[in-house]
């Protein structure tokens, strides 16, 4: 049955899923150690959800193999289901039922009987600060409450692996922070968490390792520090006083530093890899000589945003 301690929670090799012509997941390897928060980062349509649905036994892989908590995905899906829980992108709850009824329903499906099922539901409601709303129908819940209930519904029995598909999409900052707190607490209690996200700061904040996915392929993997280091140790950020000269400044920086420049339109800022402080200084001087006034500049490691764009633009 289970492999020994320290083995992988998820071990996927060359997973493929096609929808007609589209290769939604195109040969992805994944090795997630037990007890880790692992993030799959990618834009919409990158294949994140499809990858997760395959690992949660919801859709069959068209190629490759994978095991979850030591159970083969295709050969023993029933055993896999006993070890996982999944919180999908859209609330996987019965809207007509109350929050408490939803949790009792799932507790009973897991095998808790009458009183034990009610006790489990009430304990989860208390933990997720939903006791006051326990008797309300889920359709009257706010987005944040729904998300909390959805996660609670995944924890009836402590799963070996918890799949969270974009756990904070559509939440306000306060609700987002509270979901993050729960995810950290879960990982603290030994649950392996695989989450997808399109928010770089979410991956940065939560995950010990991050896999970056685009067009169904994994284009990078590592800790957030490693991903940033792989893009370039030093990043020069320049904000211009006159946004009209953004193009001109970008060309100048590109020719000086020999690396492609990322622009962010809001705030008229440019970011570019600079091999050293001396090179950065020379580039700034060149800007000044051309009469382009920086409003602000700084030298530092790249944000995950910049890492992400530089990784995806390499492929484009």
């Amino acid at each position, binding site marked *: 049955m289970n492999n020994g301690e320290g083995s992988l929670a998820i071990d996927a090799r060359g997973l493929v899923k096609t929808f007609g012509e589209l290769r939604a997941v195109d040969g992805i390897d994944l090795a997630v150690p037990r007890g880790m928060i692992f993030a799959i980062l990618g834009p919409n349509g990158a294949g994140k959800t499809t990858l997760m649905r395959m690992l949660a036994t919801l859709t069959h892989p068209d190629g490759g193999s994978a095991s979850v908590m030591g159970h083969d995905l295709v050969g023993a899906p029933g055993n896999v*289901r006993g070890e996982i829980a999944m919180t999908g992108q859209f609330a996987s709850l019965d809207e007509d039922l109350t929050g408490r009824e939803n949790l009792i*329903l799932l507790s009973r499906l897991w095998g808790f009987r009458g009183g034990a099922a009610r006790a489990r539901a009430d304990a*989860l409601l208390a933990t997720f600060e939903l006791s006051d709303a326990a008797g309300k129908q889920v359709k009257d819940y706010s987005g944040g409450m729904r998300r909390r209930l959805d996660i609670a519904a995944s*924890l009836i029995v*402590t799963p070996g692996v918890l799949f969270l598909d974009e756990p904070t999409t559509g939440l306000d900052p306060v609700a987002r922070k509270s979901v993050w707190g729960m995810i950290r607490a879960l990982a603290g209690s030994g649950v392996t968490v695989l989450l997808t996200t399109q928010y770089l700061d979410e991956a940065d904040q939560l995950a010990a390792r991050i896999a970056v996915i685009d067009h169904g392929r994994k284009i990078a993997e590592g800790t957030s520090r490693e991903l940033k280091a792989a893009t370039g140790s030093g990043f020069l950020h320049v904000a211009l006083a006159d946004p009209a000269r953004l193009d001109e400044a970008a060309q100048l920086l590109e020719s000086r530093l020999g690396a492609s420049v990322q622009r962010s339109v809001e705030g008229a800022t440019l970011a570019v890899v600079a091999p050293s402080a001396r090179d950065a200084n020379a580039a700034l001087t060149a800007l000044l000589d051309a009469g382009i006034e920086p409003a602000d500049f700084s030298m530092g490691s790249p944000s995950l945003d910049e890492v992400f764009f530089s990784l995806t633009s390499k492929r484009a």
Partner: protein
Amino acid sequence: MNALQQVSRPPAPSAWSNALVFGWRAVLKFKHVPEQLFDLVMTPIMFTLLFTFVFGGALAGSPGDYLQFFLPGILVQTVVFNAVYSGMGLSTDLGKGLFDRFRSLPIWSLAPFAGLMVGDVLRHVIAGGIILTIGLILGYRPEAGILGVLASFALLIAIGFGMGWVFIVLGLLIRTPMTVMTIGFTVLFPLVFASNIMVDPHTMPGWLRAFVHVNPVSLMTTAMRGLMSGEVMAAQLVQALIAPVALTLMLAPVTLWLYRRR
């Protein structure tokens, strides 16, 4: 966060217990969304009243005589139309990701459908009971008494169970509940009208009469009339059950396959 501490899995429940839980869900739905019953019984109530009082005299001499002929058939129609609503419900559930959670649980794969069926049976019995009550108030009298009514309701449940599979399959195939409804009624209206529910087919043209005679809805209606009047023949019961049994045998595996394939 005490509830986040390790909670291990209790002994795995039986398939039967899984199915009961889904049945409980169906009962809760009645509690929270009682208006669904309104949708189910309004159409047959309108049919009963309109046909009895508007056409009854012309078709059977008097409204009372017509009701005696019509009521067992309207019960069949009620149950057959009900099946469409359960397909719509399934299509709605599938669109919301709720079934993804069910499918990622270590439970008997068909349990959610068994639960739907429990809900359907409840709906059939409640809607059938309401229509029968209205019939009794208007003067309908089942000659076979209580036993006849019980037997006919048992047949009604079997009919609903069999027809249910058609719309479960449609619900699994079609993403939009409205489309399920449109397709359902497009198929069911001709089946229900080109049957012996409303009129005796002897005035229909020959080609249509040939269809009416083999229409499963006619066979079901004939058996229902027989059970209510106490004059049923074994062959009529068998004929009435052909379609429900065949549909179950054909479509239960298809349902399972579609559900697992998604």
